[in-house]
């Protein structure tokens, strides 16, 4: 299988902060047994750009995110591929890369004030002026009364405010890469819109590389510069965000047809038959073939090769015979 670097054809001068190549994660249920959870993930995270990793639950997107920062559960290991940081980046957890997760209420400790929790993660260089740094962090994420928020306990804040506080905590170590794993999924749409706007603003201010993990194609279309769609642990299609206009992989096409829209025809939706295969039961050949209308014999037996054209890539036997672009 060839290297799956979708960005080779994309003209983008922005600095690559973190290059992920050939990443694979194995699950070790017991000694001597490895199940493949994620395979062959290639991502270039660039300063000031957002890369979205999209897929349904169980496709491996959160595991990929966890693997980047060494947050995998004990029985899983990043045992394939490598992470290459740009020269001069402090790759320690919290410094090179920081996370924001889906449920801020779960991530914050209920018995400590917001101020105490953020103070805890401040890097040594900020110890001297800790209070000033805390106040400025909270202002950065849009709080107009930072002192009041610093003295608050998590339950005194709304979901949106909690997520802002989590963002402040993530930014405390001045990371170069922010991994946002479903950052707005637990929020109401109006709050979601504000947090997404804030993310964009922070990205411009801090020149952050953002890896956005989400199942929501609408959020992807709003936020991402580049999209990678995952299915059953593999990236099946990637390219600039505009690929959502004319996706090539049958799974991505299916996802878009299944998506309720605000515009266009409001008739019946087209679901994808079947469900995502559970961990360890990835079908042979192309992982999507049992649900695919275009599946042929070769799809059942051989994994499709990664094909690239004009900055986009796709792994599908039905594409690329005569140039799919």
């Amino acid at each position, binding site marked *: 299988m060839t290297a799956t670097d979708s960005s080779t054809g994309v003209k983008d001068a922005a600095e690559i902060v973190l290059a992920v190549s050939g990443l694979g994660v194995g699950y070790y249920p017991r000694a001597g047994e490895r199940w493949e959870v994620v395979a062959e993930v290639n991502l270039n995270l660039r300063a000031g750009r957002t890369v979205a990793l999209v897929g349904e639950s169980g496709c491996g997107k959160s595991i990929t995110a966890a693997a980047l920062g060494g947050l995998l559960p004990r029985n899983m290991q990043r045992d394939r591929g490598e992470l290459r940081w740009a020269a001069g980046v402090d790759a320690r957890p919290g410094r090179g890369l920081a996370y924001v997760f889906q449920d801020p209420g779960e991530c914050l400790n209920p018995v400590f004030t917001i101020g105490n929790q953020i103070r805890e993660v401040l890097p040594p260089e900020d110890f001297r002026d800790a209070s000033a740094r805390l106040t400025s962090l909270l202002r950065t994420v849009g709080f107009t009364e930072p002192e009041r928020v610093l003295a608050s306990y998590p339950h005194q804040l709304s979901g949106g405010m909690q997520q802002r506080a989590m963002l402040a905590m993530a930014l405390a170590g001045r990371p170069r890469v922010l991994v946002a794993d479903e950052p707005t999924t637990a929020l109401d749409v109006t709050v979601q819109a504000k947090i997404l706007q804030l993310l964009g603003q922070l990205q411009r201010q801090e020149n952050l590389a953002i890896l956005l993990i989400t199942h929501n194609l609408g959020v*992807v279309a709003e936020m991402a510069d580049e999209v990678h769609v995952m299915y059953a642990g593999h990236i099946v299609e990637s390219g600039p965000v505009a690929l959502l206009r004319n996706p090539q992989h049958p799974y991505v096409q299916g996802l878009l047809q299944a998506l309720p829209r605000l515009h266009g025809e409001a008739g019946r939706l087209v679901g994808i038959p079947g469900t995502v295969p559970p961990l360890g039961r990835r079908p042979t050949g192309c992982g999507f073939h049992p649900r695919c209308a275009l599946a042929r014999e070769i799809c059942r037996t051989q994994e499709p090769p990664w094909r690239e054209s004009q900055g986009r890539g796709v792994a599908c036997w039905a594409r690329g015979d005569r140039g799919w672009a």
Partner: protein
Amino acid sequence: MSAPLLTVDNLRVTYRVGRRRVAAVKGVSFSVARGQCLGIVGESGSGKSSLARAILALEPAATGQVIFAGEDVLKMSRAARQVFRRRAQMVFQDPLGSLNPRLKIGAALAEVLRVHGLARNRREAAAQTAAWLATVGLDAEYATRFPHELSGGQRQRVNLARALCVGAEFLVADEPVSALDVSVQAQILNLLKTLQTERSITWVLIGHDLAVMRHMADELVVMQAGDVMERGQAADILASPQHPYTRELVAAVPDVDRALQRRA
């Protein structure tokens, strides 16, 4: 249009918080015609789930009127309530949480049939169970499975079978697809639509997703903080929202087409 199956008039639901009473639903009125889908959309705290429970007489603190097929649900006798419980059913968001983990699917459905006196013996129950599973698109073999062996979409199908098997003609579905993946969500939404058109099921769809509402609801009620902000034909509301809150809501939905167009 036929007479409404459900008319809700000035419905209020209040909860006691400390010494105060807080109104979750503040005098809401609407009606649903037979065979139609009414969507109730709102964010968390809008009172949409309290409203859903009140419609099915699951909320003792509700005042006002809920007229179902000519009878006030909130003032029904015990006997009438029992019949109502057969005709009107709830479908919940979390399909796993609403199934008994220790009962096989077949046994769970048979229990419902037995409670409502619809199956006299095991063989009748099994036959009916198989038929209802087929209606919701599941093979009869699923009767022998436990809920944890099913996927989210399959569980939600089972929940629909459980609601329908007692002869329900009216469903209140509270966020029935928000826990499901997009590809599966479409399957379940299509199934709900099929039940509506082929079995004349009338239903109230509670949700937060305006795009889902656009595909499913005939009429739409937009709620915020216990009040109705806007009410009307779903297509009209989404095409030209009148209330500022509805406009904010429509503008906030992350939409693929709109975003790609804006960024192009």
